[in-house]
């Protein structure tokens, strides 16, 4: 199967899984963010350009699927991919510490940027309340989920999708 098709399927499944199942995995209202983890791993495993495009597509689909504030998730996930790719490039990716650190950094960047942007356009989402009570806990939860998902995504990106879709 072509890498582009595999990527499209993974993205669709991640967003559908996020809406259909992740709310049931909530702990005290904290929901893990699978599309965010996907964008982080795409940037980590495939580099900056791939990560940003992947973040853009995932974020745009999340926004279209939510049906409101088009572009907020897209911009936030593109920034996540950029930061992860810049900070983690050249590190030994098979070491488990690296993907977990990347997820933690990516999650923090995502939550902060999303809250900033949404306050900039006046969505009504409380900034400090969410930053303090939600973002840190959600970052920890995402990092834990990343621990479980890394092997699967690593195999898909590195073994099945050997060829970069931009090659």
């Amino acid at each position, binding site marked *: 199967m072509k890498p582009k098709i595999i990527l499209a399927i993974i993205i*669709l*499944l991640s*967003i*559908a*899984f*996020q*809406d*259909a*199942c*992740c*709310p*049931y995995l*909530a702990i*005290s*209202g*904290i*929901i893990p*963010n*699978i599309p965010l983890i996907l964008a982080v791993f795409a940037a980590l495993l495939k580099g*900056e350009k791939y990560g940003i495009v992947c973040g853009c597509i995932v974020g745009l*689909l*999340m*926004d*279209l*699927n*939510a*049906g*409101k*504030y*088009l*572009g*907020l*998730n*897209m*911009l936030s996930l593109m920034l996540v991919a950029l930061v992860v790719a810049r900070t983690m490039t050249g590190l030994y990716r098979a070491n488990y510490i690296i993907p977990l650190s990347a997820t933690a950094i990516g999650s923090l960047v995502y939550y902060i940027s*999303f809250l900033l*942007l*949404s306050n*900039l*356009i*006046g*969505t*009504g*989402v*409380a900034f400090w309340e*969410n930053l303090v009570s*939600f973002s840190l806990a*959600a970052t920890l939860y995402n990092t834990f989920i990343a621990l479980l998902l890394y092997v699967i995504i690593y195999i898909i990106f590195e073994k099945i999708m050997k060829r970069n879709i931009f090659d």
Partner: protein
Amino acid sequence: MPNKVSYGRIFLIAAAIIIVLVIAALTNPSRSDITVVEKLTQDIMAPVKSVITFVYDKIRSLPLYLGDINKTIDENEALKREILGLRQEMDKYEAAYKEGIRLRALLGIADDMTEWIPVAAKIIGRDGSSWYSTVTIRGGEDKGFEKNMPVINADGLVGRIQSVSQYTSEILLLTDYGGAMGALIQTSRTPGVIESVDSRNVVLQLIHIPADVDIELGQVIVTSGLGGVFPMGLRIGYISEVSTVDGGLMQQAYVKPFVDFNRLEEVMVLTHIPAIEEDVLDEEETVMPTTESPLPPSDE
């Protein structure tokens, strides 16, 4: 990666970000309708979500099913007996309903109220982003759903339809920050505004209540019908805590919703039917709605 970044490139990126933010601001939930692209995306995602929800539900319910099968059989018997009793109750209410219509016609009360038909819909997804309290239901324009239609379940008010695509609808839950509405205390008829305080922990508050109003814990809060979105009398929740604000001039009450928002599986959308015309009243045997009243019985 080149280290030199031209001013032209920075300008282009900044312009792109500003354009995206303008689009984001313009696509807020208060707009009249979502775009074709959003509808298309939601319709494409709907079957994928349905399949995942179906599989996930089966996996989740398997241990419960195996463990509780005897309990379910007993419960089934008890429910059958309850249905028999409720049917008799319904006959009484049906007679009272017809009498109400007849008396309203006799008194010549102008009736611009709209009747509602509840249409069942299954929840196929929730907003997984943590920022908004919305759920996706199966059924959209194909079932006659429209933006702002009220959504209830057996326990009370769930929310309202925020956007509709061909086959799915997005429900803005009562617990969302944007879900504020007019409400009143059922017994004293004191009006106020109910809004979300903490969407993740499902906390609502009733605000703008004058300080001289007596509020008791456990009092039921219902919709006021003001604003034209919700019919009057839909049950919202009960008062769990009362406090004074604005230097003692006003009161606010924390409200615990009747609906368990974490376990929503099916809901009823209240769709419009035209108001009953006088000439139809003559044939009153045929004007009774085929479904029961959407207003759950009061606790009082």
